[in-house]
């Protein structure tokens, strides 16, 4: 059904100055779906996300959010249509406390309800509740990542976009992040996951997309990738 789509992007052509970064990428996410975006560094994963969100408007192509044309719209306008973005690097505010990070963007979701409240974020991320008065810059990498995800959840999104959410984290913390992503998935929130940990991604994703040099070279289920490891070996190098 057409209106099942949260994000529907077609033929995205993106340039950084003279360099052609995305060569006609089609990308969509349906309600309740978990989609992974894989590829080596510099293949256009982050650019795909950022062009959908309006940070890097595509030169050609179309971006629809919940069926509404948002091509070229400003990022806040795209994101407030019930998307949440956890960028690579976590986007902490060094001068806001943990509590303020969560209070600042809090809003109701699409149905007008607040399923994710301050208390629920505290339950999900008990580590944060011990550091409520710390500033964003005083947290460890793992705590920053939890705060970035908690902050995104406070906007009660329909779609959560996670760019390299486990990058640079210790294995135990990484597992904790994957556990949280599973909770979010179980909660019915759609997710786009960009990550380098193939194992957890395949367990989590309903659909996987592999980008090579700004082109989609594979799109399919996790089982397809498990059955044909050659695809991953050739395009990602694992």
């Amino acid at each position, binding site marked *: 059904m057409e209106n099942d789509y949260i994000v529907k992007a077609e033929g995205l052509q993106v340039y950084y100055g003279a360099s052609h970064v995305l060569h006609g990428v089609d990308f969509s996410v349906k309600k309740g779906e978990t989609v992974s975006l894989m590829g080596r560094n510099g293949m256009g994963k982050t650019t795909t996300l950022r062009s959908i*969100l309006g*940070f890097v408007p595509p030169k050609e192509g179309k971006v629809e959010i919940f069926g509404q044309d948002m091509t070229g719209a400003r*990022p806040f306008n795209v994101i407030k249509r019930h998307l949440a973005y956890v960028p690579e690097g976590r986007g902490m*505010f060094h001068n806001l406390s943990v509590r*303020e990070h969560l209070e600042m963007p809090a809003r109701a979701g699409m149905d007008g309800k607040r399923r994710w409240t301050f208390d629920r974020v505290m339950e999900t991320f008990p580590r944060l509740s011990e550091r409520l008065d710390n500033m964003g810059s005083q947290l460890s990498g793992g705590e920053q990542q939890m705060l970035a995800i908690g902050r995104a959840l406070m906007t009660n999104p329909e779609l959560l976009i996670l760019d390299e959410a486990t990058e640079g984290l210790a294995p135990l913390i990484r597992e904790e992040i994957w556990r949280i992503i599973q909770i979010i998935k179980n909660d019915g929130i759609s997710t786009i996951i960009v990550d380098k940990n193939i194992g957890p991604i395949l367990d989590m994703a309903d659909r996987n997309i592999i980008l090579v040099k700004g082109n989609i070279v594979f799109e399919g289920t996790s089982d397809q990738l498990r059955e044909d490891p050659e695809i991953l070996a050739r395009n990602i190098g694992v």
Partner: protein
Amino acid sequence: MDLTTILIQLLNSVQYGLLLFLISSGLTLVFGIMGVINLAHGAMYMIGAYLAYAFVEWSGSFSVALLLGIPVMLVVGIIIERFLIDHLYKKDHLFQVLLTFGLILILNDLQSLIWGNDTHGVPIPEVLSGSITLTDTMQYPVYRLTVSAICLVLALGMYWVIQKTRLGMTIRAGASNREMVEALGINVRTLFTIIFAAGVALAGLGGMISAPLSSVYPGMGDSVLIICLVVVVIGGIGSIKGAFWGAMLIGLVSTFGPILIPSLASVMVYLVMAIVLLVKPRGLFA
């Protein structure tokens, strides 16, 4: 100096410092959050002073002048931000300097066209024209105390808004990571308009309430701009707290400096700035 003189000078320096803070706060916020150097900030102070003069002439009441002047300043701020500053966000600082410097020239000429080049005075409002007796021989004007009180209330109000409200959190977040604020679905452009208009209104209000203390004259904003830039740099660009302590420091230095070392009176403030920057190159609270 006897104790009473020191007390009076102290009151003067606090009053001057608070007034400087009121004017500088907008400058530092606009610079720190929006990344825009608004050289026309002093001209906003001047417009405020002339509006006070014009509205007092017209209505005979200083309160009416304030009530009319503040909304006018807000509108001036919104217009300048929407139609001029808006084009500068993604440009080099040189463009900002050129445009806002040009704005100073235009506004000074407009002032000259509308009000002429004479120096004007604004009478101190009747109810506040008295003095408080400190000793048998020393008195302190009530209006100066009122100015301090207004600035103090506004400073506390500003502190409350910035520290305790969601708007304040968003403003602070914007100073730290503008793109992330946008990535949370918040319209940073609207935030900028609010900050800029508030900054202009505060500078204008500074001009209005200082009009009865000093005279109203052409180019009066230029020296205010310089001293506010000193305050902002001393305090640390973008820091409201820094602007407060920077302003208090400059208030003290420019009141007591000329008394203690008269030969250095004209350079005292810059000397203090140089020393602060030698110790803390990014300012006190950056």
